């Protein structure tokens, strides 16, 4: 693989796919993604669906924490709001999913914008703990408004009306004909999620290379200098909160669709917030690549953990959820201590090795 061509213009510098190699990679990668649902067995298909949900969620957190530097432990609260709004709108008012999903995002964004002003006065750890408090407060609200949310018993997501094929369909797994192609159950979700995840990655990438993102990074690195240079820190932080919580709400809605039946705790507890933080750290802070890689790696890890966990002594005594927690905790600790850049650092090293080949450097 040749090294990157000499950049001679700003347009070239900003291009998402600057040369023919990137374009070739894009074509091959999309071909792979589009054939996946027909090749993978159902188990791995649902894993890939979860991975796509996690990608949207981790891009959201990356915008807030990775770009704008605002530590948030309240990500699960935004996902919970998105998931419950989507589910309640579908169940109580029978809205179509393409309306319910953005509505989930909008509700989460409204709360995010309300929390944003806190970030103007609080920094670092204080903000982390306040957003942690948000998880408890939101979950308490959801539990007590049981007329809408059915409290602890959970709520069913009307998958049949949304993704059932014909009137006769008994469950949403029945096949639909899409111009000669036969699409079943999770495959429908896969294509919907693929589109949404691509959208989220595109949004993340565009934020990163536009002046909104540059303002966020300036505030993250040195807010005083940013302010002197004419960046409004208040506006930037609130924008980051709004954008991040909107995407998190969408991710929550997607999660509800994937699960088909959701309860409040678990899954929308502190562990979920921690998992998302783990994703962006594992992937590599401050990049969209890191968010995507971290999300895929962590989601793929849990089925792998089940396979590996059974073989290990002592670990086998834990439940499968705990097994995967143990393995990814150990992994994250190793990454933090040995490879601060995360998967991105590994990828850069591999790339550099081949770029310099046959020399070492």
């Amino acid at each position: 693989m040749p090294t990157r061509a000499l950049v001679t213009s700003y347009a070239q510098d900003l291009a998402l796919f600057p040369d023919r190699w990137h374009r070739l990679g894009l074509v091959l990668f999309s071909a792979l993604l589009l054939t996946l649902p027909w090749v993978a067995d159902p188990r791995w298909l649902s894993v890939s669906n979860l991975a796509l949900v996690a990608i949207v969620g981790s891009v959201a957190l990356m915008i807030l924490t990775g770009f704008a530097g605002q530590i948030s432990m309240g990500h699960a609260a935004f996902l919970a709001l998105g998931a419950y709004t989507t589910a309640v709108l579908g169940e109580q008012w029978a809205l179509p999913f393409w309306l319910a999903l953005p509505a989930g995002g909008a509700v989460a964004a409204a709360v995010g914008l309300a929390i944003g002003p806190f970030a103007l006065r609080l920094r670092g750890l204080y903000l982390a703990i306040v957003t942690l408090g948000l998880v408890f407060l939101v979950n308490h609200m959801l539990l007590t408004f049981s007329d809408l949310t059915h409290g602890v018993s959970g709520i069913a997501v009307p998958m049949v009306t949304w993704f059932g094929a014909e009137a006769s369909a008994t469950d949403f797994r029945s096949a639909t004909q899409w111009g000669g192609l036969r699409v079943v159950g999770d495959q429908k979700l896969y294509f919907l999620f693929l589109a949404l995840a691509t959208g989220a990655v595109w949004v993340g990438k565009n934020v990163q290379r536009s002046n909104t993102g540059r303002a966020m990074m300036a505030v993250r690195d040195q807010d005083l200098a940013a302010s002197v240079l004419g960046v409004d820190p208040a506006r930037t932080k609130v924008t980051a909160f709004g954008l991040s919580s909107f995407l998190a709400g969408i991710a929550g809605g997607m999660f509800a669709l994937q699960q088909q039946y959701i309860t409040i705790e678990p899954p929308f507890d502190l562990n979920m917030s921690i998992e998302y933080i783990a994703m962006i750290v594992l992937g590599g802070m401050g990049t969209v690549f890191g968010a995507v890689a971290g999300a895929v790696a962590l989601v793929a890890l849990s089925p792998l953990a089940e396979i590996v966990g059974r073989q290990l002594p002592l670990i086998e005594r834990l439940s499968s959820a705990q097994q995967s927690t143990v393995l990814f905790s150990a992994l994250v600790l190793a990454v933090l201590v040995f490879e601060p850049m995360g998967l991105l650092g590994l990828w850069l090293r591999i790339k550099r090795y081949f770029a310099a080949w046959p020399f070492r450097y």
Partner: protein
Amino acid sequence: MSGLLQLLVSGLALGAIYALVALGFVVIYRASQVFNFAQGEFVAFGALMMVSLHAEGLPWLAAVALSCVLTGLLGALVERVLLRPLVGRPVFVTIILTIFVGALLRAGMTIAWGHELRGMPTPWDTMAEVQVLDAQLLVNSLGAMATGALVLGLYFVLIRRTRMGVAMRATASDQEVALALGIPVGRVFGATWFLAGALAALAGIFLGMYPRNVDIHLGFVALRAFPAVIVGGLDSAMGTVIAGILLGVLELLCQGYINPHLGEFGKNFHAVFPYFVMILFLMVRPYGLFGSREVERV
């Protein structure tokens, strides 16, 4: 009236426990600017260790002392092995590290102790009560209050009057200068983690007593001690102690007097009440009661 007194005493007991846990956070934070999210796991570890040691036949006081020491050593070990290599890295990294250390510790405790509930041994009758005026007070609550007061007193003597205390304060005020003046900053870090672990174990022992039980989830109390740390001010030991006791009392008063008036919404409202107070409080004073105000220009 008797209801109020009963609530006040159990609130003060809970507050003393919050104060012990919160003090553990502050001790570490002041020395090394690390916020230890694994503190809750230390609480659970100390309590479980206590139950096991007492079951082995150790006298009560010896078991308390030994479990404090063992939990302290666990804390020092975590610091030496995992956090020392990260000195100088962003705050965010160390926070995440301690979160995952906590997850690993919890898994380790599940392997070692399993899920069942255990009763915490006490030197007095487990459910003993004393009659004060016309209220029934649990001896356990009174014990927690007394121990809390004693330990907090000892802590302030340690920090003001001993060599190690002075070294800790010097490290808190400026690491590099402390290092240049010959203070063994590494050993101070170790000592602060040991102290935090021992405080956590003590909190765990009193938290696990009747009417509560000991299991691996005991550590979730640390999540409820966060508001105390924040309201008190992250780097003020006195502030967190006061805030811890206040929030403990407020939580129980809320359970007794506010919950019933909120209808459906009031169910378990006292559990989130400290967070509620914290958020309102931070709107007014962003650095807590006694936290040092940082100079801000933007």
